[in-house]
């Protein structure tokens, strides 16, 4: 049951709501009072250049970083107060894939499942499942020796092993070739069809069109929020890159 506290003022369909979410490191404000929401079953793209505050935002949503001020609710639970509860709903894949280089792919998957409380039997079944996608001889190699594209798939598989409702992916396509990227987005659509809510951060503007909705973040502030095609039409921008430049220029002028 969703526990909607009196502070929660999102829509009933909003699975994640952030209000004036702020993170400061000393005098530097990495994320500056951002407001946003993510609807259930939505694929949201959080776009911005390196250092814009994407990873900081996602880490505050998962409880990996302490929030300086503001709040974020996941399924109605305020993150700071209900960290253990929200961990059940979230699958998180970090920027560098967060795999153990000395463990092989199977061992990484087993570890992620095991520490997420997935029963042994399910872990075994999931390991069989990935063998259908990636050859066993690759999966038995140490992760440090396998190509980035496969590493990314293993990381995504590990993130999904506990079958989370909300999937937070931090720069999942960085360092992989276009073919792997396309395959990755195909997987994201499969997950969406299964009713999962997905947040993907990226600095590749050409990936924005894959998302149902995008948030453009710049210098810790959200400067655009909307469906990619609508935003392009409204801003009269013929490409995502133009749209981004316009938004940044407009934001800096203000």
């Amino acid at each position: 049951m969703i526990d909607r506290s009196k502070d929660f003022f999102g829509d009933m369909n909003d699975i994640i709501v952030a209000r004036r979410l702020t993170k400061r490191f000393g005098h530097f404000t990495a994320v500056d009072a951002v407001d946003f929401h993510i609807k259930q079953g939505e694929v949201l793209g959080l776009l911005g250049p390196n250092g814009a505050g994407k990873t900081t935002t996602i880490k505050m949503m998962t409880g990996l970083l302490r929030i300086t001020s503001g709040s974020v609710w996941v399924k109605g639970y305020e993150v700071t107060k209900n960290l253990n509860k929200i961990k059940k709903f979230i699958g998180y894949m970090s920027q560098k894939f967060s795999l153990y280089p000395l463990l092989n792919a199977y061992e990484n998957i087993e570890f992620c499942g095991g520490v997420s409380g997935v029963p042994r039997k399910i872990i075994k079944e999931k390991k069989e499942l990935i063998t259908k996608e990636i050859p066993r001889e690759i999966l038995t190699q140490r992760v440090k020796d396998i190509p980035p594209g496969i590493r990314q798939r293993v990381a995504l598989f590990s993130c999904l092993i506990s079958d989370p409702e909300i999937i937070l992916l931090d720069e999942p396509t960085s360092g992989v070739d276009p073919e792997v990227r396309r395959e990755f987005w195909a997987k994201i659509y499969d997950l969406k069809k299964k009713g999962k809510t997905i947040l993907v951060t990226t600095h590749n503007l050409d990936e924005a069109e894959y998302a149902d909705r995008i948030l453009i973040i710049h210098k810790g502030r959200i400067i655009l929020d909307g469906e990619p095609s609508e935003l392009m039409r409204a801003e009269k921008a013929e490409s995502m890159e133009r749209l981004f430049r316009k938004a940044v220029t407009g934001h800096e002028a203000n």
Partner: protein
Amino acid sequence: MRIFYLFKKELIEILRQREMLVLIFIAPILQTIVLGYVVTTDVKNIPVQVVNLSESRAAFRIVNRINHSSLFDVKKVSHSPEDAVSIFKKGTAKAIIVLRDSFEAGNKNIRYPEVQILMDGIDANTAGIAAGYFNGIVRYYIMTDIKQKGFELPLESQTVIRFNPDLESINYMGPGIVALLLTMISMFLTSIGIVREKEQQTMDTLLISRLTPIEIFTGKALPMALLGLIEMGIGIAVVILVFNIQIRGSLLYLFITAVIFLFAILSYALLISTLCNSQQQALFFSWFSMVTFLLLSGLFTPIENIPRAFRWLADINPLRYLIRIIRELFLKGNDITYFTKDLLIMTGIMVVLLSLSIVNFKRMVSR
């Protein structure tokens, strides 16, 4: 059950590094053997020079005894004065023994030369021991000589040494080395445990998992404790088999002591790991701590030598208690009643370190 996966992961990570395996399983054998032979407080073969300016038979006999003693390595015997400072500067001898005829022999029946020993004080420890040895030789000679001349000494002390009658330093260094091994491997491996997660950016995987901070802490510490105990087992086997030192006390007490000590040292190492930002920093910190623990442990020098104002540093050093208990178990065969106090103090230190470490880890996790 979740903790089992972390335990397994930690072990796999260590055992998959070939260099680490050598460090864990081969190094302790070599270390115990090498340290057992090398780290000795016995002072032998002290290079000395004898300047014998006396023509007495007594002087001749004393020189003869020095020559035949394994304690001294007589480099030169001269019969004319020598420049002591020059000899010490060259480093050819650490002591110069000078014998010359006394101008005022109190008793004409017993005529002994005047004896002087000049020491190179750079190595104060050896100098002190050498002076003691030499005085012993002279005293023994005089006593024998007086008795031969029909005199009786009014007072004579008799020394009886128990537990290590031959005063072999390996007998008490060996068990100390076992304690050293236990500390070294556990501290170094554990101190990089959490910082490695930070460096290879896998900390997020742990923190986003359902593991609680205490589970992460325990899952990190337990494999190291296991490896530490294996290390200790190897060390004990080497000490027993190579140096023929028998353990007279209970192995169970040794195990209990080791486990308490391990949790103290692992807590300290995990504290280092949470405070440092790189493995390099953690290793440096561990090395610095290791040297301090070692110097304040009583392994090489007696705790009683430490000035009172700094003795508290030794009192809070868990290695001090481990070494004492291990020595008591090995050499004296004492049961737990003899070292309950040490065990309780060590447990107290362990509880404080463990609490500090867990609090700090929780603080780090919620940053």
